[in-house]
C-alpha cells in the first residue's frame, strides 16, 4: 500500500491545485450557496420601525409578535429617528405604540392606539398595517370577551366568579394552540436550526451530497487517463496486477475523500451551525463508499475522459432534479412513494448508515476483481 500511496502522491503533486480544488469543492460550494441564500433571504425582509412609548406587557408582546414575523426586519427606535429614516427611505414604514396603549385596550377603547408613518415609497405599508391591526384586534377582542364573560357571571352566579385575569390567561392559551400562523413559525424555530432564526430553503447536506458526487466523479478520471493501451502490458511484469493497483488506488482515494468529508463536518458545524452525531458520520462513510465505488465502475466503462466528464455532468444534473437533495420533490414522492426507496441518495439525506444501494457497486467491483486479469491487456 505504501508504494501505491507514493506513486499516487507523485501524480497529485503534478496537479495539486486542481486536486485540492476538487477535494474542497463540496465544502466551499455548499458554504457559499448557503451563505448567499441566507443573505438574499435576509435582504428580502422588509425593514420597518417600531416606536414603543409605553413599557407595558401588551405593548411589549405586540412588539415581539412583529419581530417574530419572518417577513419583517423590525428596528426599535425613537419617533424622531423613525421619521428621519422614513424620509431617507431606509425604513418602509414605522408604527408607534402610543402611551396608554394597555389601559385603552383594557377599557375597550380603540382610538389612537397606534400611529403610523409612511412615505411615497412605502410599498408594504398597507399589508403591514393590516397585520398589525389584526394583532391589536386580537388583544382588544380577548379583552372584550373577558369583559362580557365577567359581566354575565356577575349577573348570574356571583359566587363562582372567574377573575378577569384568568379569562385572559385562558384565551392566550387557546390562542397559542390554535393560532395557525404562530405555530408554523415556532415549529421552524424548534427544528434543530439551533441558534439561527433564519429558515434556510437549502439543505446543507443535500447540497454537499450533490457537490461531492460531482467532485468524486471528476477526480476518478485518473482511472481513464492511466488505462492507456501502452501502459497495461507493463503491469504484467510488475509487483501489482493492474486490478490490484486500481483497487488499492480506489482505497486510497476513499481515505483521502473521508479526510475532506471530516473537514466538511467541522466546517459546517463552525460556519453553518450544523450538528454532529454518529448517525451523520456513519451516513457519510457509507455514502462515500457508495459514490466512490460507483464512480470507479462508471469510469471503467470509458476510454475517453472528455466523454466521461460530459456523462458525469449530465448525471449530476439528473440527480439535482430527481434526488430531492436540492430541490424538494415532495410532490413527486407523494404520488410515487417508491421513488424514496429507489433514490440512492435518500438514506444519506435521512442520515442512516445502512444504504441497500451500497451492495450494488460493491458486488460489481467484487465481480470485476474476481474475473481476474486479461492475459493480453
Amino acid at each position, binding site marked *: 500500500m505504501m508504494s501505491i500511496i507514493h506513486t499516487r502522491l507523485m501524480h497529485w503533486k503534478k496537479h495539486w491545485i486542481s486536486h485540492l480544488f476538487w477535494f474542497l469543492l463540496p465544502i466551499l460550494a455548499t458554504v457559499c450557496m448557503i451563505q448567499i441564500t441566507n443573505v438574499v433571504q435576509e435582504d428580502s425582509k422588509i425593514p420597518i420601525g417600531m416606536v414603543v412609548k409605553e413599557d407595558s406587557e401588551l405593548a411589549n408582546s405586540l412588539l415581539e409578535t412583529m419581530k417574530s414575523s419572518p417577513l419583517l426586519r423590525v428596528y426599535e427606535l425613537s419617533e424622531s429617528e423613525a421619521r428621519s429614516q422614513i424620509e431617507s427611505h431606509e425604513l418602509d414604514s414605522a408604527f408607534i405604540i402610543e402611551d396608554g396603549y394597555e389601559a385603552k385596550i383594557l377599557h375597550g377603547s380603540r382610538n389612537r392606539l397606534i400611529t403610523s408613518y409612511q412615505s411615497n415609497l412605502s410599498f408594504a405599508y398597507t399589508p403591514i398595517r393590516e397585520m398589525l391591526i389584526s394583532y391589536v384586534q386580537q388583544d382588544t377582542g380577548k379583552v372584550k370577551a373577558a369583559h362580557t364573560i365577567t359581566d354575565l357571571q356577575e349577573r348570574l352566579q356571583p359566587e363562582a366568579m372567574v377573575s378577569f385575569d384568568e379569562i385572559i390567561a385562558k384565551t392566550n392559551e387557546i390562542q397559542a394552540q390554535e393560532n395557525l400562523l404562530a405555530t408554523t413559525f415556532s415549529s421552524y424555530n424548534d427544528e434543530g436550526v439551533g441558534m439561527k432564526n433564519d429558515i434556510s430553503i437549502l439543505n446543507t447536506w443535500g447540497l454537499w451530497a450533490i457537490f461531492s458526487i460531482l467532485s468524486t466523479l471528476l477526480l476518478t478520471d485518473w482511472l481513464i487517463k492511466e488505462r492507456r493501451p501502452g501502459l497495461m502490458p507493463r503491469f504484467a*511484469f510488475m*509487483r501489482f496486477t493492474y486490478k490490484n493497483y486500481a483497487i488499492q488506488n480506489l482505497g486510497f482515494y476513499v481515505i483521502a475523500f473521508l479526510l475532506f468529508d471530516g473537514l466538511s463536518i467541522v466546517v459546517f458545524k463552525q460556519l453553518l451551525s450544523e450538528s454532529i452525531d454518529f448517525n451523520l458520520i456513519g451516513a457519510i462513510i457509507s455514502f462515500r463508499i457508495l459514490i466512490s465505488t460507483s464512480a470507479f465502475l462508471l469510469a471503467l466503462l470509458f476510454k475517453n475522459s472528455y466523454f466521461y466528464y460530459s456523462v458525469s455532468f449530465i448525471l449530476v444534473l439528473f440527480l439535482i432534479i430527481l434526488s430531492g437533495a436540492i430541490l424538494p420533490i415532495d410532490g413527486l414522492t407523494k404520488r410515487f412513494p417508491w421513488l424514496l426507496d429507489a433514490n440512492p441518495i435518500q438514506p444519506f439525506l435521512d442520515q442512516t448508515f445502512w444504504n441497500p444501494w451500497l451492495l450494488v457497486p460493491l458486488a460489481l467491483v467484487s465481480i470485476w476483481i474476481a474475473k481476474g486479469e486479461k492475459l493480453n491487456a
Partner: protein
Amino acid sequence: MLKVQSITKSYGKKLILNQISFSVQPGEIIGLVGENGAGKSTLLNILATLASPTNGNIVLYEKSYREKRKEVRKQIGYVPQDIAIWEEFSVEENMVFFEKLSWKRRSKQELQQLCLDMELDKWKEPVKTLSGGMKRKLNMAISLIHEPDLLLLDEPTVGIDLKSRKEIGNHLKNLAIKENKMIMYTSHDMDEISTLCDSIICIGEDPFYKNLLKEANKQIVTF
C-alpha cells in the same frame, strides 16, 4: 536459456504462427523480421506471456510458461511498442514511479545509472520536452528496472534519429555481452539487424525478406 517448441498461434481460422521452434542462449541477440502483419508482435507477446500460444511449449530457465507464468514474468523485460511513460513526469520521476511498482528495490543512483548506460543524461527534465529517441530510451530503461534475463523489444528503434538508434543498439549489445541477457527484438532496419544480431528469425511468406537475409551472412531461421 529460452526454449521455444513448436509454437502455433491462430486467431479463429487464421493461422498466424505455424510450428515455430528455436532456442536462445544467454548473451545472444535475436532479430525478428518479416512483413507487416506477419506475426512478429504476436510472437513477442507470446514470449512475453501476454498471449497464450494455441499449441506448443515455451521454457525459460527450466520454468514452463504454462505452469509458472507468474515466476517467468519476473525474469522478463518487455518494451512495448507504444511508449508507456508519464509525459508530465521528469525522467527521474518516471524511473522512481515504476521502481515503486517493480519487483526489485533499486536506489536512485542505480536508476540513474540505467539511464546513463544508454546515454539518457537528461535526469531532471520533464519527459514531454524530450526527443522521440530519448523517450524510447526511457521506455526501455523502465523495462530494465527489475533486471530481467530475457528482454523483448517490439520495434524499439522505430521512428527515431540515427544517433539514438545507434546508442540503443550499442546498449543492447552491452546488455548481451556484459550482463549475459537474452535479447529478442523486431525491426524493419536490415542494417541494424545484421550488425547487431547473432541470429535472425524470419517469419511470414514474403520471399523479399528471405532473399535480403541471404546477404546478411548470419544464422537465419525462417518459418
